[in-house]
């Protein structure tokens, strides 16, 4: 017990969410007779949830800044149909379709950011309007019909790392990616330790660090193994690579850059931030715009996976993304939350969904369970805070700031 405390830095409950995730996986692995942790299932878990997790990345920034975005599902659907039509009717090649979609997302975001930041209408209202507006535009453009997308575009939602090099019985690129991730983590940890020693800050015992590294690397290695041994033709999905890259980039932006600090500052106390020289309106504008760009990307990934863009794409996504962010420890009042926490929160929901489906539980019960989990996770966090203990997430944040762990396996 003591050892565990040392490895994870203090109270075990601090890591509640990660443990919950691991426990959930183990539970379903046993209950489903071992088909949860098969290459096929893990791959489809990623494929089927990457777009929600991408939304959660944008949403956590919006929520940290003290806003909310209800329009993400509709924006995703709007961008999806616009891109599908551009490729079908205007003959855009796939890469241009993606660029067009991101630009369109930026445009939508600028529109919403304008109303929130410049005019000062609460984001709840602006995006509620956007939810209707962009859903309507989707159905108008698509004439309420589905529009198919070409095969090579489908790769961003349903493609995999290709097979390259000698036949090792594994997907070679996936193996490479896993090893790179592991080396990066080990290297990062050592560098940080060195810096701490140089600053004269407290340093943990060697064995603590080694054990933690072994655990993290072990998990990564196992994930690599799963992804590398899927059915031939499948491996680590392209959407997973996009997600991993976004987690790294946004994790870094939120915790280590000036703009990231400004987002937290505006969410924590807008007046204080403004009187410290932070341009709060610019921050509001940027987080709203960024959210819509990511929503556009999520929409395209979903369309690619579905092979067509439909009139009901993205219905209810905003709620999934918001739930992931709050399970991941963000505060409704703003100023608190992390990218990594939200991803963990999103994965908890995804694993729950997947596991219950594997068990053949209907979607009625699945929704009931998901609702209870959301309530329980946030209640646990609130209880912990009222007890004067640091929030789980606060500590998750701290530890993940130190360990920008790539999602890539």
């Amino acid at each position: 017990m003591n050892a565990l405390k040392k490895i994870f830095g203090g109270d075990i409950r601090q890591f509640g969410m990660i443990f919950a995730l691991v426990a959930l996986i183990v539970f379903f692995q046993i209950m489903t007779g071992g088909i949860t942790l098969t290459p096929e299932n893990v791959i489809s878990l990623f494929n089927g949830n990457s777009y929600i997790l991408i939304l959660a990345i944008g949403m956590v920034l919006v929520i940290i800044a003290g806003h909310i975005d209800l329009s993400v599902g509709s924006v995703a659907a709007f961008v999806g149909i616009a891109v599908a039509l551009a490729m079908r009717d205007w003959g855009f090649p796939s890469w241009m379709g993606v660029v067009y979609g991101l630009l369109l997302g930026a445009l939508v975001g600028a529109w919403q950011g304008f109303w929130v930041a410049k005019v000062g209408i609460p984001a709840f209202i602006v995006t509620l309007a956007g939810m209707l507006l962009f859903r309507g535009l989707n159905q108008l453009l698509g004439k309420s019909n589905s529009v198919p997308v070409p095969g090579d575009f489908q790769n961003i939602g349903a493609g995999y790392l290709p097979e390259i090099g000698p036949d090792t019985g594994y997907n070679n690129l996936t193996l490479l990616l896993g090893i790179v991730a592991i080396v990066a983590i080990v290297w990062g940890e050592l560098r940080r330790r060195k810096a701490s020693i140089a600053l004269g800050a407290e340093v943990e015992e060697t064995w603590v660090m080694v054990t933690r590294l072994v655990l993290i690397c072990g998990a990564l290695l196992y994930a690599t193994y799963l992804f590398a041994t899927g059915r031939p033709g499948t491996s680590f999905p392209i959407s997973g690579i996009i997600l991993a890259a976004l987690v790294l980039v946004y994790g870094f932006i939120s915790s280590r850059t000036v703009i990231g600090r400004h987002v937290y500052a505006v969410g924590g106390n807008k007046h204080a931030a403004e009187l410290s020289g932070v341009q709060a309106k610019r921050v509001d504008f940027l987080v709203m715009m960024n959210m819509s760009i990511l929503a556009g990307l999520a929409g395209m990934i979903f369309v690619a996976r579905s092979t067509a863009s439909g009139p009901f794409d993205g219905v209810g996504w905003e709620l999934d993304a918001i739930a992931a962010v709050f399970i991941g420890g963000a505060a409704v009042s703003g100023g608190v939350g992390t990218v990594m926490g939200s991803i963990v929160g999103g994965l908890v929901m995804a694993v729950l969904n997947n596991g219950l489906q594997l068990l053949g539980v209907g979607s009625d019960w699945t929704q009931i369970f998901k609702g209870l989990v959301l309530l329980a996770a946030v209640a646990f966090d609130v209880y912990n805070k009222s007890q004067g203990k640091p929030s789980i997430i606060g500590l998750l944040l701290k530890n993940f700031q130190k360990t920008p762990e790539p999602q890539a396996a």
Partner: protein
Amino acid sequence: MRMFGKAGKAAAVAAIAALALTGCGRAETGSAASGGASGATGFAKDSLIGVALPQKTSENWVLAEKLFNDGLSGAGFKADVQFANGGVSDQQNQITSMITKGAKVIVVGAIDGSQLGTQLKQAKDAGAVVIAYDRLVKNTNAVDYYVAYDNFKVGELQGQALLDGMKAKKPSGPYNVELFAGSPDDANAKVFFDGAMSVLQPKIDDGTLKVVSGQKTFEQAVTQGWKAENAQKRMDTILAGNYGSATLDGVLSPNDTLARAIITSVKAAGKPIPVVTGQDSEVESVKSIMAGEQYSTINKDTRKLVEHAIQMVQDLQSGKTPEINDDKSYNNGVKVVPAFLLPPVIVTKANVGTAYAGDPVLGPITQGK
């Protein structure tokens, strides 16, 4: 343990090596092992059969769930029947879960027939046979069979019933009518509408029928998501805008849920109830027909459809090729899907007693009168 850098790298390399040595790489079983459509081989009698149904929006789907569960279990299979109340993405994930669990046949009642390509390809790659149930799956070659009622015929029957009903009330035209269609993302909706219009269009052209609102095209007549509230709202608007003095004689409604919503709207507006068609033989609508409100419905007995779908599964299990009766009508954009079509039956107050004679739910209701 002092040289962390080396230790770390060594650990990673060693672990990878261990993986390689144990030789537990992927099994080269090959994906094209058992061809789906040919179904020559068959499979174990207690295999898992997945049934992915859309949202629980009408009584028929709820009934289908029970029938599939009972029927498949009765035949010795393991059944996994799921509703996708969360929308397309929910259904996609349910289908992949069925594949993961090793389903041999997946029966799909699609929410949006064009958005399941990736998942059905996965199913195909994993060696499962895909049967499209009630709604055709489009733009993929990973669908093996289609089982449904003849939907064009349904439309024709509805169109004819509308004409007959109005004629019975008022011997000669012109008649004022309004048109309703189903949800545009359901491939059947257009087929119903086209079937009905094949009967009604000539009458519109010769002036017998007059669509007062002017909303004659499929796009104008759609009811998003097959939702009653949408149909009711549209009817409210049409009545308020066009029927201040004019009388509404008939409404083409694609199904019972919408038919009842339309009747509710007309009643609320204080107008006499026009001739309204329907489909699905829902309990409430059958009662409504007996009470003289809704004019007609279509009996597409869900029991027979499910029965036939299960029959197909049993044929596949024993290695036989399932029976089909149409191999050219249903082109899904990539291939012509072999189909088995069941004939629909029109039901009005005149034949309501006989039409449901054998039905355990509707039978007693109609006989009790």
